[in-house]
């Protein structure tokens, strides 16, 4: 589990000083650096920026890109956009869910993988697509899944 460095959170808050409407952007910064947003980080933001915690939770739970739980060492995104859907993405998702014994949105107990469903990654020509830690794997078949996941410790 990645601990969130609250000093870093302070630095991020500082960057938006004097600007309006920055909460979503700030939460995204934290998410992209630590892959999740902890309770402590939310408390910190609430105190520093004088925003009620409820409002921060409301945003953090609304958006797909934000996670209130720690995520695994590797993040698998399975694209379920329409183009991938018609080219067999559900079979890919089934296979990954079956292999890892978790559902979309969950993390394996050993914290190796977090599985996310995404709606469209915009590389429809390569569908079905999965992205592991930012690396795109296109035109994959269920039989290729094992080989791809094997390479991630």
């Amino acid at each position, binding site marked *: 589990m990645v601990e969130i460095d609250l000093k870093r959170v302070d630095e991020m808050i500082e960057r938006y000083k004097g600007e309006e409407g920055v909460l979503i*952007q700030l939460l995204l910064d934290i998410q*992209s650096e630590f892959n999740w947003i902890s309770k402590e980080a939310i408390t910190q933001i609430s105190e520093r920026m004088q925003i009620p915690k409820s409002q921060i939770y409301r945003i953090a739970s609304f958006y797909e*890109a934000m996670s209130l739980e720690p995520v695994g060492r590797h993040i698998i995104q399975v694209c*379920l956009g329409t*183009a991938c859907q018609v080219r067999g993405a559900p079979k890919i998702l089934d296979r990954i869910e079956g292999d890892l014994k978790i559902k979309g949105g969950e993390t394996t107990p050993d914290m190796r993988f977090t599985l996310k469903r*995404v709606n469209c990654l915009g590389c429809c*020509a390569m569908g079905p697509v999965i992205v592991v830690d930012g690396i795109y794997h296109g035109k994959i078949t269920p*039989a290729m899944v094992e080989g791809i996941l094997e390479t991630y410790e």
Partner: protein
Amino acid sequence: MLRINSKEELKALRTNITSKRDLSKPYITICSGTACHATGSDAVAAAIQAELEKQGLTEDVGVRRTGCHGFCERGPIIVIYPGELCYLNVTPEDVPEIIAKTIKENEIIERLLYYDSSTGERIVHEHEIPFYKYQTRVVFSGNLWVDPANIDDYIALGGYQALAKVLHEMTPEEVLEEVKSANLRGRGGGGFPAGRKWESTRNATGKPKYVIVNCDEGDPGAYMDRSIMEGNPHRVLEGLIIAAYAIGSQQGFVYVRQEYPLAVKNLAIALEQAREYGFLGKDILGSGFEFDVKVHRGAGAFVSGESSALMNAIEGKVGEPRPKYTHTSDSGIWDKPSSLNNVETYATVPLIIRKGADWFNSIGTEGSKGTKIFSLVGKVNNTGLVEVPMGTTLRDIIYKIGGGIRGGKKFKAVQTGGPSGGVIPEQYLDTPVDFDALTKLGSMMGSGGMIVMDEDTCIVDIARYFVDFLCNESCGKCVPCREGLKRMREILNGIVAGKGREGDIELLKEIADVMKSASLCALGTTAANPVLSTIRYFSDEYEAHIRDGRCPALVCKDLISFYIDPDKCTACRLCMKNCPEGAIEGDKRVIHVIDQTKCIKCGICYDVCPSKVGAVMKISGEPVPPPIPEAERGIERRKEKGEGRKEEKGEKERGEGKGQKAKGEGGRDER
């Protein structure tokens, strides 16, 4: 960088940039859009750089990483100038040969060219490839030439000249008139005339006024906005600044999806460079006009692409729609007059200013002018981004440009307009595509997604897919959308699971009616479109599911079964090894049998069974034939009986084990 203070200085800068460029000198462009990144354009670019250094050619050969060329199916794409030689599916291993032969000796490498299977010919030039030949690339054209991280490339093509013209030669009213008389309709979905939107924002009383670029592009299956923003961000910015001038706004926002990291990055670079030249900030081009832009990243919520929701998000609130008692042109961000358009709309504006409204009106149909970019995806041979004049027929797009349906399958329908759109069946393929024609067919233009479906796509499953998607994306604020979608999902889940009931179709229509009249925002009012249009054109498929428990496309898991035809099985064990559930019994020289109680119907056995064997069968609406008795499963015994088994040979031909397993080659899967 030098600040540009007048129209003349911009002209001088352009001359200076172009004069330094020797067009007779070879240069290589490498497509670096997201799809090409994914297929390895970084490695190709690195290999080109390394090879040029090795050969001591870095001074003599230019290299440019451009935006998306649109033919994503065949990436990474490189084009070598002069001569516009186009190589497709390039790998780093091809690079030394390309440099040695094509760059040094002017020799063409045949195998990397486009192969036209209909004529049996190889095509040398990019624009002659059928995928490009039948397009009219106007808005998207810059992507082939411009390095998005280098503003000079855009200026060399005449970039920011429209802005200079507007600021120095036209009044805001004249700009409005020009855009209005061009009949530019918003490319993001609704097709509302951009000029009228701008005008009402200009005439609204509040101050300050805001202009917004919507690059949320949440429609699954559409990615033209991403490609423009990634590949040619200055064209969007120029359009935005022109809009700001016409409206009288000093502050713009670009809302861009977090899922598009490259677009976020290239946009940030573009903004910085535009500021350095003085195209943004105070006293733009010495005109006294002031304007700047902030970037707001979206965080993965489809509904936030709706204009009032997007404005909420920019304010830092949850991206949910607002009730629209007033127009956003009167009361948008922070209750101030705001005008929102999508990426493609803004990218069209500089062209209208430069070439004039008459030019724009000369392209397209009566009600829809200009060109439109479509993302042609799904079961079509040439997937990619396609820009055509409004009014081009679906057939031309899918067959002439798209090269028809993959694997010789039969066309079933094309889905347009994303989750708010609908499906269009074969009998309407000759419909000229524009805003009004698509609406008439029960679909819509949307942002231009075109998902082609073949006979293997289950239409009920597609309707279920969209409803499921929207159910997850509905913000839940209003009852008709939140509850309506949930009930629709229940019914559709029932139908695809073989639990459909008589009356389901009527019930779906009734719910759709309520959602249409009573939902808060466009997400809800259009959410039933995929269901209604699939019922309209494919009610027989719904009925097959409900009445006969049969999925005609052999997709719905609960309605299909897999079994192995004992007469065809060569006992190669490929399916056994790949079955994740261990549901296949058999051995070497023992015919394989699927244990129906263990089978999860993942279809892997069907995909890996070599196409020339084709022993795994998929059926629906009929009982699975009983497995052959164990005593009769031996293959040698059958061979003695003269049924002609070629087990040893077959195994060698297909190759055994890991390689096959990892790659899944040779299967029947259409890929």
